[in-house]
């Protein structure tokens, strides 16, 4: 199905994803009005990086993603995946895509679905079988591998979607709202999976409305608004309040805390001041997960 190119090795591309001055214009059939969904968007994603694209609904995130996947043709500009034009079919051998609210063929089981997509990518025989087993294990769906997808919950479908996106070992993973509609446990598992893939060197390009999760997993973030990229950079750069510093101390007694207060007062002349002090809060998500895990352990005993 796919064959190794016989041309001499090309230079290793600098970026996994290269989008330069991307413009996408839609024209309505009768009114002949044009609508610019994406307006000169440029972004680059280095290999092995996790990049998050965030923005309000209708800001052009999905259109940018679709241009990268070859589902829409750019009106102007360049979209490349590891140096290959995104409009070419070849580029897709390196891409795994999880769409928002994935809907697969209800009549198939999880195993059949993965086999189907694996075969489309040219994987066959024992290699395919092993890959399917591996992925079902990875997304914790082994127990339901022979159940038709029509009987799956949303979270399970999301996991099948992730598995099919990974079937051909892609170098670039494109995730559109990967945790939408998934419960906190499932959401945490997907996040952990993203971390794992990142460690393995997979480049990840994701869109999400769940800003906390973006903050957790992404190395770099782009903010898109009304089709234009308004801000971009590393999370540290984007979210840090430069003139403030945070310390979290465990098991500090009152004496130590008083000493710190005194030290700050001593340095008031240089402009330093204490903004706030108190016990940090855990997240509701952490509480939920810890509670669920404890209950599971109790039931097992």
């Amino acid at each position: 199905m796919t064959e190794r190119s016989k041309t001499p090795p090309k230079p290793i591309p600098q970026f996994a994803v290269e989008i330069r001055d991307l413009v996408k214009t839609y024209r309505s059939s009768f009114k002949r009005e044009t609508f610019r969904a994406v307006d000169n968007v440029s972004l680059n994603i280095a290999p092995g990086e996790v990049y998050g694209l965030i923005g309000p609904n209708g800001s052009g995130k999905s259109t940018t993603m679709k241009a990268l996947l070859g589902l829409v043709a750019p009106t102007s500009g360049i979209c490349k995946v590891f140096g290959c034009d995104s409009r070419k079919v070849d580029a897709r051998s390196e891409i795994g895509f999880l769409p928002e609210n994935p809907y697969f063929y209800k009549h198939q089981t999880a195993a059949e679905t993965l086999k189907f997509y694996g075969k489309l990518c040219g994987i066959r025989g024992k290699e395919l079988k092993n890959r399917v087993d591996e992925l079902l294990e990875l997304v914790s769906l082994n127990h339901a591998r022979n159940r038709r997808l029509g009987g799956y919950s949303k979270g399970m479908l999301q996991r099948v979607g992730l598995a099919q996106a990974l079937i051909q070992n892609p170098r670039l993973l494109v995730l559109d709202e990967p945790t939408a509609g998934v419960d906190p446990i499932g959401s945490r598992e997907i996040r952990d999976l993203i971390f794992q893939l990142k460690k393995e060197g997979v480049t990840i390009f994701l869109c999400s409305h769940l800003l906390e999760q973006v903050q957790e997993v992404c190395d770099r973030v782009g903010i898109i608004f009304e089709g234009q990229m308004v801000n971009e950079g590393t999370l540290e750069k984007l979210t840090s309040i430069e003139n403030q510093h945070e310390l979290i101390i465990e098991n500090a007694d009152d004496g130590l805390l008083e000493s710190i207060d005194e030290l700050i007062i001593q340095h008031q002349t240089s402009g330093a001041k204490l903004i706030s002090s108190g016990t940090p809060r855990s997240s509701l998500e952490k509480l939920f997960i810890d509670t669920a895990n404890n209950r599971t352990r109790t039931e097992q005993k």
Partner: protein
Amino acid sequence: MPTSTQNFQKTSFISFSRIGVIASHTFTQLVRMKVFYFLIAFVILLWGSKQIIFPNETGGDGSPEQELRLIKSAGFAAMNMFSMLLALSATALLIPKDIEDRTLYTILCKPVPRLDYLLGKLLGVLVLIFVSLIAMDIVLSFFLNQKAASIIAIQTEQLTSRGIPKELINEQLAGLKAHGVTINIHLATFAIFLKAIVIASIALLISTFSSSTLFTLILTLIVIVIGLIQADARDYATTMAEFGQQNQLSNISLAVAVFFPDLQFLSVEDGVIDGRSIPLRIIGQISIIALLYFAIYIILSWFAFRKKEF
């Protein structure tokens, strides 16, 4: 997991194995929709047709033949209806459903050229129709053979009792045997399959630029109906041109003849119902034309679909 490679894997323009994967998947999808249950209705229909006995009131030779004709016409009519409905609805639903469900995204985001996708989907439907027609052909042959055998047995007994020699009996029954199960039944079934191929490829073409399943269904149905009278329109336009007389009607007829397919030449089952033989060269000719239609419509479908945006 590799972080970089030096060579990009080249995807071939067309891949039969990839087409086969999509076709097999589509076939399974349709089978799991329980379309084969219609075979029960088909068996009941033919069993019912077999029970009908036409009275031999005139004393002529017509009534035993008429009973065999009825089984054949009911069988072929059902085959035509079913294959047309399946070709039409299954194909018209394929792409819009995939777009609506966004399953198309996950397929086209794999290294799958759009032509492979179209061919795979269409082939899946055609394989289903083919398997269904084979099953119906077997059922039809079974009932027809039973009926023909019983009629021939009765007639042989009657003629023997009148002292007619065996050679004369065989001669007299030759016409009746021509209405039984012969190779022509299977050739007619094959012609129905060719018709389904053409209808399915028309539906596919329309679905590539239509945004609505209903619109696709209606437009394809209109094309089919026009296709069935296209031969009459072409005949009229040709005759008027030969006589050097042209009017608005002949111009419209010419346009119909040019733009629409001729589906009448694939309706050779009518001749088989009348007990006629289909020469193999005719089957060859209609196959070539049907496959040409298929090729043209597939190429045009690919042309419309290749740059379609989702």
